[in-house]
């Protein structure tokens, strides 16, 4: 019983992550119609905003230690983070909250990245064939990745969550289960809440303003929307900026769960495409629903009981479900007609 509850919780959490990662993609891909293979790279850049800030905060004052030598015969160094040297206690607190602080840093950075990317590159590709969009965004993704690799190396870089939420929560005891029967890492709960909050914010923005409708209209027919006096380019740029921020935030918050490396974007790329398409092109609700659905199913498919009946099911469950859904429902869970069907 607790096992099942735990898997449900875990599935929800995974689903939250999938939904959040797919959300940024669905804004660009499902809404603007650009097959954005650089989405993973945006996610990765977000994570590296956190890495960058963390490294900035842990920048160390290096002084030569006269009493010690390294084993290879050069003088040893004494290192102390500037931030602690300068701010003492307050400095350590900042360091502790590096990840949440990164959110503040990542929002403007990702916004600028998104806008620059749209203005400088993607803008010219709205009317080009999807194939060319794939090639150019994939090229961009590789370039971004390699730049990060040159700068930060290829090895994962761990970023701790704030201490207060680094342990795990004894959720079971809240609901009257035995002690420690159901415990779950705090940070993952935070991530789940964060996903829900961001998803709601994006929904609110697109549903309660005409922005969403205009962008949808612009995607269907830019020319006509222009004839109605609307500067659709500007809106597309904003949309792209928002999507980049969403992707970036998903990345920032993911760092304590998965130590980021330059390649992490590619690993999530396929998954996020699958989630968006299973959800249905052009539907935010669909993407979110698909994210949660796939997360929960994946969680269950990994249970030993199920794996012993269908060996290997956990490895293919996402694709299997994707196939099943797409064969039964022509446009995924709730896709809109005519979006990327041709």
């Amino acid at each position, binding site marked *: 019983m607790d096992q099942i509850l735990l898997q449900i919780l875990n599935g929800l959490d995974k689903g939250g992550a999938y939904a959040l990662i797919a959300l940024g993609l669905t804004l660009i891909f499902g809404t603007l119609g650009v097959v954005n293979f650089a989405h993973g790279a945006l996610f990765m850049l977000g994570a590296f905003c956190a890495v960058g800030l963390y490294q900035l905060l842990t920048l160390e004052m290096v002084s030569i230690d006269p009493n010690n030598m390294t084993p290879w015969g050069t003088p040893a160094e004494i290192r102390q983070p500037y931030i602690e040297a300068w701010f003492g206690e307050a400095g350590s607190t900042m360091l502790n909250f590096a990840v949440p602080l990164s959110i503040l840093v990542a929002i403007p950075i990702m916004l600028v990245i998104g806008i620059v990317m749209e203005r400088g590159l993607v803008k010219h590709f709205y009317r080009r064939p999807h194939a060319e969009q794939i090639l150019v965004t994939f090229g961009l993704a590789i370039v971004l990745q390699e730049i990060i690799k040159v700068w930060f190396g290829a090895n994962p870089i761990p970023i701790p969550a704030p201490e207060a939420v680094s342990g795990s929560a004894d959720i079971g005891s809240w609901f009257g289960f035995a002690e420690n029967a159901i415990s779950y890492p705090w940070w993952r709960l935070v991530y789940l809440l964060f996903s829900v909050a961001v998803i709601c914010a994006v929904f609110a923005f697109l549903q309660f303003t005409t922005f969403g409708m205009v962008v949808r209209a612009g995607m269907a027919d830019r*020319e*006509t*929307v222009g004839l109605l*006096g609307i500067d659709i380019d500007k809106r597309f740029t904003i949309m792209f900026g928002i999507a980049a921020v969403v992707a970036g935030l998903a990345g920032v918050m993911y760092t304590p769960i998965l130590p980021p490396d330059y390649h992490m974007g590619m690993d999530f790329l396929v998954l996020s495409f699958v989630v968006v398409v299973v959800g249905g092109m052009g539907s935010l609700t669909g993407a979110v629903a698909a994210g949660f659905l796939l997360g929960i199913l994946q969680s269950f498919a990994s249970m030993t009981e199920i794996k012993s009946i269908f060996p290997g099911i956990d490895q293919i469950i996402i694709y299997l479900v994707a196939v099943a859904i797409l064969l039964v429902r022509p446009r995924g869970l709730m896709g809109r007609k005519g979006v990327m069907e041709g």
Partner: protein
Amino acid sequence: MTTTDTLERPGTKTPEGAPFLIVRDIHAYYGESYIVQGVSFEVRKGEILALLGRNGAGKTSTLRSVARVGTPDLKQGEIWLEDAPVHKMKAHEAARHGIALVPEDRRIIAGLSVEENLDLAQIAPPIGWSKERIFELFPRLGERRRQEGVTLSGGEQQMLAVARALARDVKLFLLDEPYEGLAPVIVQEIERTLEQIKEIGLTTVIVEQNAIAALHLADRAIILDMGQVVFDGSAREVLDNPELREQYLAV
């Protein structure tokens, strides 16, 4: 048969009022095909100009150039609306200056309901007729306000396209075959609307295959052939000149 030298400023012929729209020697291309080959004309405020010619003459291309839509690409020439240099604008800027184009293929936006199609027209200023007023003129649209625009019948779509232009506060109305596919009763209705519009003093350029109907409405007419102006004069002149009608309009 009168053919006007395209270089001559037609505006000088009719002295009353300064020209409202000046199109001066515009050249436009689709990629490498040279389609609009030096078209010039002027329209005075409150006037209705009929733009006539055979299929492929370049009527649509001319209208699209004036509305500053991306294709065809206007490579040379000037377009002035009052004192505004329209040729330097993008489509949405031109629209904000009061130019409205009702495109020939209607361009109802997929995925949006009838009402949303109208809402869309009322996002950017200047805003024109209210939705209520529009639905009064076109009750059929009112009945179908929640239906997806593209599932309307052909004629209903045409109504929506006209309605969408009216929803904006327009100075210059560019109509590309507004009667196409409409039943005679509706044609009459739109004709009446256009007459009303004319009374308000709205300046209009209308492209229409049904030359007779257009000429009855219009003050002046231009005939295009092979991307060039071959006639520019009053609507009466065309109606009275069977030779001209025969040669360029085959009526």
